[in-house]
């Protein structure tokens, strides 16, 4: 039986939280002994969700500077994939709670295919960025992305929230009305820029790609890590802590930035010489490769969920702040969905 993988979280009445993860099999092991072009062919078939991010990271890790000429198109595909993933969270998670006001799924599901068809034709690429900007304006933000990104204080945020309604705004208002804005607020350690030499050395420890730490400490990667310096998030974190509201708004800030990033067409994949780092919707995706005579000798993949859902990581730290009340499972679900594990999860109160 092929397993999608699952995260199990046990919440004790004493406030302790235990997380165990069965995230399926180690894909990297089956890449050993293959050629780099085989790897580029296999990855998108296995990882159909964020296949372009895997390809981008793999290309950088396997081909180093030779991957430069593909970096623009790889980055555009990763951005389209990220936009779809963020919008899917909103479609399937936020909307369901906000009521039946349907956010139309078809344009969201076409974003990746649309960008793929547009690659290489600058005008068509820009049109894809415009398509995304329109989806954001009409179905999510109720404003142009630039207007949303200009919000830089709580008063302006409240004004935006009170304006033209969207399912996403309804969801945020619901979170605030329930008193959940600071839900799960805890001291989180954002993953810093990683020294490439040190990172490569860390992969010699087989545990590193399952239970990663940096300088002895689990770290968080993803929208909150990347956007916490935005003025609106600075204000929200000051007012409510790095809790549920900050996490949800960080996703919106990140989404709102994507159309412009697409217009710029910059190379967003980092690494080289055996290492590739792509910024996916859920955080940094790292591939580390060594080759022997043009074939893969060692391959390691470190996905963002392993940081965020580390047994002592950001999700667990956030869950440990929850009071043991009757609606504990609901609060836990809201937080876990906001941090976004990418696999099914179950919460048990024991």
């Amino acid at each position, binding site marked *: 039986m*092929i397993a999608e993988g699952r995260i199990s979280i046990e919440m004790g009445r004493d406030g302790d939280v235990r997380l165990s993860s069965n995230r*399926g099999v180690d894909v990297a092991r*089956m890449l050993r002994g293959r050629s780099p072009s085989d790897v580029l062919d296999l990855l998108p*078939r296995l990882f*159909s969700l964020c296949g372009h991010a895997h390809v981008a990271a793999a290309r950088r890790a396997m081909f180093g500077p030779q991957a430069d000429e593909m970096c623009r198109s790889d980055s555009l595909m990763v951005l389209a994939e990220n936009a779809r993933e963020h919008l899917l969270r909103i479609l399937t998670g936020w909307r369901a709670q906000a009521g039946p006001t349907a956010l139309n799924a078809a344009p969201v*599901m076409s974003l990746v295919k649309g960008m793929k068809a547009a690659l290489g034709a600058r005008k068509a690429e820009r049109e894809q960025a415009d398509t995304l900007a329109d989806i954001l304006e009409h179905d999510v933000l109720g404003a142009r992305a630039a207007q949303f990104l200009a919000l830089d204080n709580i008063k302006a945020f409240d004004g935006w929230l009170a304006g033209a309604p969207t399912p996403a705004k309804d969801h945020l208002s619901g979170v605030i009305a329930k008193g959940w804005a600071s839900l799960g607020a805890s001291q989180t350690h954002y993953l810093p820029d990683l020294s490439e030499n040190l990172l490569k050395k860390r992969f010699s420890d087989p545990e590193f790609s399952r239970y990663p730490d940096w300088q002895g400490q689990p770290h968080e990667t993803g929208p909150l890590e990347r956007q916490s310096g935005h003025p609106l998030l600075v204000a929200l974190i000051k007012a409510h802590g790095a809790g549920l509201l900050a996490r949800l708004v960080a996703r919106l800030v990140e989404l709102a930035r994507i159309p412009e990033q697409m217009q710029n067409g910059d190379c967003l994949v980092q690494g080289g010489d055996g290492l590739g780092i792509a910024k996916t919707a859920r955080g940094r995706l790292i591939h580390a490769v060594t080759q022997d005579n043009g074939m893969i000798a060692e391959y390691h993949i470190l996905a963002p969920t392993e940081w965020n859902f580390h047994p002592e990581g950001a999700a667990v730290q956030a869950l440990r702040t929850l009071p043991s009340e009757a609606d504990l499972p609901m609060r836990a679900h809201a937080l876990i969905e906001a941090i976004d594990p990418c696999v099914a999860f179950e919460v048990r109160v024991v």
Partner: protein
Amino acid sequence: MCLAIPAEVVAITEDKQTATVSLDGVRKDISLALLTDVTEGDFVLIHVGYALNKISPEEAERTLALMAELEEVAS
């Protein structure tokens, strides 16, 4: 790793919102909220309870074979 797994649609509810899929002979209900035009016999990629896209039977077969190989490597 988050894998999306191919599965065959064996039944669809009247409101077209839910499908029963067969995964290695195990039946499972999934949401069709993200897709239109799915019919019985189609192959779809499923992820955490949702059908994400339609794929061809050949593509589904290739991906499933690859995943079976993966299981073998892991065991």
